[in-house]
């Protein structure tokens, strides 16, 4: 049987190094299968976070040959066979052990976002067209690969000022919900740092759900913020009539 070498990071918050493991390759095998083989036969304490192994839960994120990916959807036979496959933890988050990182910051950011609030007296009729547009954002499986690759977080570590692509996707889903009555533009501008994004589209490239994060979520949100805060006509209208804002 063919074999592959996996070069896996072993270590914790104090540091570590990569270790090579030889793994037999079965047809259609994914990187997560190979990691499970290592756990079951070579290194029982290898820390890997995973759940469904079907691309639906977004738990098994790592950097495979330098690219942020879900290990359950990365086929071994799609990678070069003549060199070791490197598997490293996501770099934007603090390491806990081996491939497991501390992603709790994401959950703290999420708490800042006011949830769906229907407009008063709304009739619960929605057209499929409106649903389709929003469902793109609601496909997000929270794998945090977009957060991992985003240079505002990865290179500049602006975690206090910047929410990251994942949460712009969530807010886009709320703001474009046909029955939602809140306005989160102020929050985006002042607390979630939407302005830091300079639309390099790295997030879109790594999204396993193929959400067009930059084009369909971030840019429309940026337009909303501009309309809301920098458009003279809107500012005048608001002065005259008043408008509900979440922040």
């Amino acid at each position, binding site marked *: 049987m063919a074999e592959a070498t996996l070069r896996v990071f072993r270590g914790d918050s104090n540091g570590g190094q990569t270790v090579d493991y030889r793994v037999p390759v079965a047809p259609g095998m994914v990187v997560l299968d190979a990691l499970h083989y290592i756990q079951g036969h070579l290194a*029982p304490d290898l820390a*890997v976070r995973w*759940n*469904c192994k079907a*691309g639906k*839960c977004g738990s098994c994120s790592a950097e495979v040959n330098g690219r942020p990916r879900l290990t359950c959807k990365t086929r071994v036979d799609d990678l070069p066979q003549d060199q070791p496959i490197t598997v490293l933890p996501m770099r934007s988050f603090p390491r806990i052990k081996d491939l497991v990182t501390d992603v709790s910051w994401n959950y703290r950011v999420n708490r800042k976002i006011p*949830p769906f609030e229907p407009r008063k007296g709304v009739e619960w009729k*929605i057209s*499929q067209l409106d*649903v389709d547009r929003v469902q793109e954002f609601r496909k997000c499986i929270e794998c945090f690969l977009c957060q991992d690759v985003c240079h505002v977080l990865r290179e500049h570590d602006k975690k206090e000022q910047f929410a990251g692509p994942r949460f712009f996707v969530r807010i886009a889903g709320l703001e474009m919900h046909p029955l939602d009555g809140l306005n989160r533009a102020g929050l985006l501008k002042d607390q979630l740092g939407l302005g830091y994004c300079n639309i390099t589209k790295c997030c879109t490239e790594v999204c396993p759900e193929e959400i067009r994060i930059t084009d369909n979520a971030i840019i429309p949100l940026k337009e909303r913020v501009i309309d809301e805060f920098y458009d003279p006509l809107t500012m005048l209208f608001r002065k005259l009539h008043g408008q509900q804002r979440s922040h």
Partner: protein
Amino acid sequence: MTANYETREHDVLIIGAGGAGLRAAIEALAQGASVGVVCKSLLGKAHTVMAEGGIAAAMANVDAADNWKTHFRDTMRGGKFLNDWRMAQLHAQESPDRVHELEQWGALFDRTENGDILQRAFGGHTFKRLCHVGDRTGLEMIRTLQDRGVQQGIDVYMECTVTRLLTDDGRVAGAFAYWRETGRFIVFKAKSIVIATGGIGKAWRVTSNSWEYTGDGMALAYEAGAELIDMEFVQFHPTGMVWPPGVQGILVTEAVRGEGGMLRNRAGERFMEKYDPKRMELSTRDVVARSIYTEVKEGRGTEHGGAYLDISHKPAEYVKRKLPSMYHQFKELADVDITKGPMEVGPTCHYMMGGIRVDAETAQSTVPGLFAAGEAAAGLHGANRLGGNSLSDLLVFGRRAGLAAAEYARRASPAPNDSAQIAEAEKELVAPFSNAGTESPYAVHRDLQEVMQNLVGIYRTKDDLERALVELEKLNARAAKASVEGSRLFNPGWHLSNDLKAMLIVSEAVTRSALARTESRGAHSRIDYPNVDAIWEKKHNIIVRQAGGMNRSESRVQEMPEELKQILAAD
């Protein structure tokens, strides 16, 4: 005393953060209780996320003739009349409200032309009844509940595993747990506890279930003295992936058949004509799973030992819109384009109908203060669950469990946690670090999966089941000696050594119950007793812990009131 653990206190402690746990938490919180939710994974990763096809609720948006009575009748017939009739009634009556509620919390379902929630056909349902979001309904549901719960103020203990319930004079008093990340211990004090830990599929080799599905909640309840019921009824979903090997068992949603997918054998025959000519591919899951199994067994299977499931006669755009994750799953993992050709599918261990015995109205188990909801609880689905009834189950009985647990907590006085129980739990948990020898928890798990797969699968016999009991005893002995290396810092081998105990308990309960039920009914098929037996239609198997070990007994099926009998008799 300097404790080895931190302590947290809540009125209501919920174990499990899938649909049932989160719905229970939201309800208990609404009642004014302080609520803690403990989950083995990160929040939002629970198995509910994998539910695909939809939520069954008789809303009559597509088929105007639908109503709760028909849903009740379909559920009872699907469950071969072993269901708790009161649960089936409540479920059918309350599901539409629970779905509307989700929508009001922000869930976005697919729509009809009129702008209402769209409903699709599914096996065993008379009418188009499943509210859905393409083929990722579970994700929509869990995200909605998660955001709602967090915003309302639940405390979530992520990546934390409960290993023992603490009791005081027969009632629950708390729970002992460890943080997966650090390996440190945590003790919860709680007036009531809701178990919402899901199923047991990881005891089988071919399964659609995630690693979390190790039967923890059922084992915790069992150890605390609660009764388990209907444990022989394990659902094998007819359509899991069969190729390549690494993806074997991954679910192929019933929505493929709901949207018109056809099953064929190697010779190209639509074989369901032989097994259920009336309902064909949309027969109940037990029937379709056995039909595929039989086709393969008799030599008419596909190249990799399955059946063909084909939806490629539908327009490619339609398939991609209604079944997007199936499209991607096959394209990426199996190199198959389902808009152009058939999928290969075969049965996969999917769902546990049996579980913790609960009261229909309150979801309370036979242990005071201990509640259970969702897959961990039993009763609603009887001998076979209809697709779509699990998500509605989570909402209806999750809410009821949360409500009743909060009420119980309001009346209950705080119970002390017993330091002897805590010390014992601690000792048991760390034992694998001091076990000498080379027994690997991974090896024990692999062997357990083979035993359950080969001896306690779709078709069962007395000989196989008796052999399984012997094997399980050996596995128990091996598991007790399993040793782990490394530290307590995020150590999966150690985590598995603990999960193994739960898997072994539920596996034994399934096997003992299956051996006792000398008939074939729903998901339980005995080759040596191929027919239904009128005597067993009136009996449940009950499993309870006793001094000498696991005890099995029987209890009578509850008599149904006359007006419900009339609903069942109608056509």
